């Protein structure tokens, strides 16, 4: 089993917005998809997933509807609001800038070590 990483502060919201951006989805599926896509590297603590979803809903970044699943059960499906999409774009851009800057710094220190 590969080593698991804790999520950096604040990134859970970004990841949730990204997953929801792909189409309406319920909470359990979000947890599943995050785990699968990250190849089990990102371990989403399920206990903090739901508070995060409710917080995003409360900030009007997500909206939710109760709909039937393929198996015929009722589940709460989250979707992105217009405000949420804008937020996702802004946060993605900011994340990119941050990671580029971080990796630049990391390269620099590797160069220094050679």
């Amino acid at each position, binding site marked *: 089993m590969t080593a698991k990483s804790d999520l950096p502060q604040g990134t859970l919201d970004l990841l949730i917005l990204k997953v929801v951006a792909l189409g309406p989805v*319920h*909470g*359990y599926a979000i947890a599943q998809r995050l785990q699968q896509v990250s190849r089990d590297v990102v371990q989403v603590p399920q*206990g903090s997933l*739901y508070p*995060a979803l*409710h917080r995003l*809903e409360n900030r009007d970044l997500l909206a939710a509807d109760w709909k039937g699943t393929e198996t015929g059960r009722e589940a*709460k499906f989250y979707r992105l609001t217009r405000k949420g999409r804008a937020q996702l774009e802004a946060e993605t851009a900011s994340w990119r800038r941050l990671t580029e800057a971080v990796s630049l710094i990391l390269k620099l220190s590797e160069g220094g070590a050679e």
Partner: protein
Amino acid sequence: MRWWHRLWRRKRMEELLEKELRFHLEQHAGDLIGQGYDAEEGRRRARLALGGPEQVKEECRDARGTQWIDNLLQDLRYAVRTLRGNRGFTAVAIASLALGIGANTAIFSLIDSVMLKTLPVSHPEQLLQVTRLKDRDSFSNPIWEQVRDRQDAFSGIFAHTGRRFNLASGGEARYVQGSFASGQFFETLGVGAVLGRTFTSADDKRGCAGVGVLSYDFWQRAYGGRADVLGKPIFLDGHPFPIVGVTQPGFFGIEVGIATDVTTPLCAEAIIRAENSWLNERSARWLWIIGRPKPGILPSQATARLKTLAPEIFKATLPPTMRADRQADYLTDSFETKSVASGRSNLRSQYRQALLILMVVVGVVLLIACANVANLLLARGAARQREIAIRMALGSGRARLIRQLLTESILLSLCGAALGVLFAQWGARLLIALLSNTRNHVVLDLAIDTRMLAFTAAVAILTGLLFGIAPAVRGTRVQPQAAMKANGRGVIEGSRFGLGKVLVMLQVALSLVLIVGAGLMLTTFRKLASLDAGFDRGHVLLVAVDLRNANYPPQRRAAGYQRMLDRLRTVPGVRSASRSEMTPIGGGVWDSELLIDGYTAKSHQDVIVNFNQVSAGYFDTLGTPFVAGRDFNQHDTPQSPQAAIVNETFVKRYFGASNPLGRTFRLNNGPGVFPPVEIVGVVKDAKYESLREDIPPTAYRAESQDRPGMAAPSPFTNFELRSVAGAPADLIPSVKASMEEVNRDITLQFTTLATQVDESLTRERLLATLSGFFGALALLLATIGLYGVMAYNVARRRNEIGIRMALGAEQARVLLMVLGEVALLIAIGLVIGLCAALATTRFVASFLYGIKSNDPWTLSLAAGVLALVAALAGFLPARRASRLDPMTALREE
């Protein structure tokens, strides 16, 4: 969705949250079972992965931002449950808070309506009253007309005076409160009509026929709100005035405490007062002037503008009969202004201080009630320590517990306040009834307004915090493990009840202050009510007569009065009858400056003497004995030398020990020389204007002789009738009948001398009644507090007392031990209370009569009563302690 929306849909949200999480768990478990776990294990792992469902829910609620409301609701629910579970405690606490808060709200609502509320007119804050620099704030009509015609700083300005009008045209008078107001009155105030019109400057011209504008309340009360009143006449003092309109609801005039029913233009004064009209009278000051500055003009600018006009105006209106030395003063007088946003009010100036004192008194009562509830909470907190320790052991934070206990306190005080508002509504009406009498019918707007509700809510919350905070902090100062000990009774430490005892001492001290205050007020009232006023107030009926409707030409009035007096003397049941210009304690003063032969005046003030004009038999009827000389008789005629009877103070001040009979004085009122008046008799001193006054030098002139400066007797006079036995009011029907025989259009008004004297003590009675009531209430609350603390103390110390008794302590010893504690509490409380009383009662010194604010008898009597009652309250628990069965007490351990 806003949080309150969510709050509304809270229940639904809870269900959905539950459903969402259940779906998650079932899906996860299903997947795990699909991966080969058995059903039980799959569900277990799914639950493990999600974490504690309650914790997740809590965090979700937090994320939604409604957690604090959930907490509050939880606390409230819990508080309601706890309070319900303790009905006795809750009832006592709420009742004492309702009394305390209700009393505060009642007094405040009175203060609100008398002193704070602004007039129900448009922009009352802009209104300015024009006042005088050197004198009282009333003006003559000539001054008003000058101001009206010359001023240019006010967009509207009016003169106003209140007056009672008699609606009856003969027989017993029926009065309504009315007023004379100049033309711009309604326009300046911005008060409109709901029916017809108000009057304008066009209606207020000299020589007008007069119109009447009714108040909405009067229209409803007297005319049933009928629209056909317009154009119909209303008879005021016998003169018909066509009704032209009804003012908007809520407008009561500009004098707080009086509801003006009818307003007529100022020019109508000439109709009502006829030959005695003051419209041209330069020395009569009877009008108040109020104006609204033009937009953009500041009050200071308006005042400055008036000041520049002052010299000319005062020059043009100089009273011709004024003495030279006063003329200089008059000519250099000037104008000032002051805000009248909350209207004018005699009631306010009369009761302002009394109301503030009462506010402090009820504040102290509330403090005592708070101390009581705090004590109850402390005792209950001790009983709940186990519960609190368990909750702390289970992880509740102390802050959260304190918050929860405070929620309970505030809920208690809010319940008390809600009940208190009802109590206050009733109490405030009672207060107004205490303020009112037959002469002064007080009408105040007591509608609950936001200011009153804000006051009550603030008092309630502060009260809740005040009595709740100490018990809450103490109650939660507990080690969780302490509760886990097998013996739950060891939790409470003895020292913990120090606070309860301090509260009881405080109660005793505060109650003592209130009881001393009550004692002083009661003594004042008793002294005033029972003092020797110089006349015998029992068995005297006063009949005020108004001839204006009865068509008596001035020259026939004297004969008419004599006929009436002769007729009244024959009414069965009348022992003696007399006639006079003024009646004792009637509210008016007639005074005059004298030149006294053989006496050199120290100042103008020194020789100002009160006057009355009376018939023969006046002193006999009132029961004022003669000291020397004779009564007036049939030989005192307009042609004979002027005669006067004076009182003892007059003699003492101006003649010392020498014989006053045969000495003379002259009036010194204006230019010219008045004829000499000879003193023919001396009577005992009698109160003139009020019971509180030092009796002034008084001279009585014969009503059979002319009143100097007056061509003919006025159309008003008073008769006094002493009944043989029985209530003087029983004479009224036969007096009415006999007066009708003389002339059926004479207007009469009846009162008894006892009532008239009694009503002059309205304020004293109010203060005595209320301070007595609140003093008793304070005593009761403090007694309950003391009893509660001692009873609790004894119950808590059952073990100790049981052990003492088992080791041989006698009953009497235990009794003395507990009583000793009680005595110490009371003693310390009394000492503090005495110091506080000495420090505070001097603020009421101006209300007292015949007693000093530090009267040792009152202080010791109050302390004695309090000590006795408190000792009784402490005796019951002490006796219970001494009768403990040691075996039972010990077995409980």
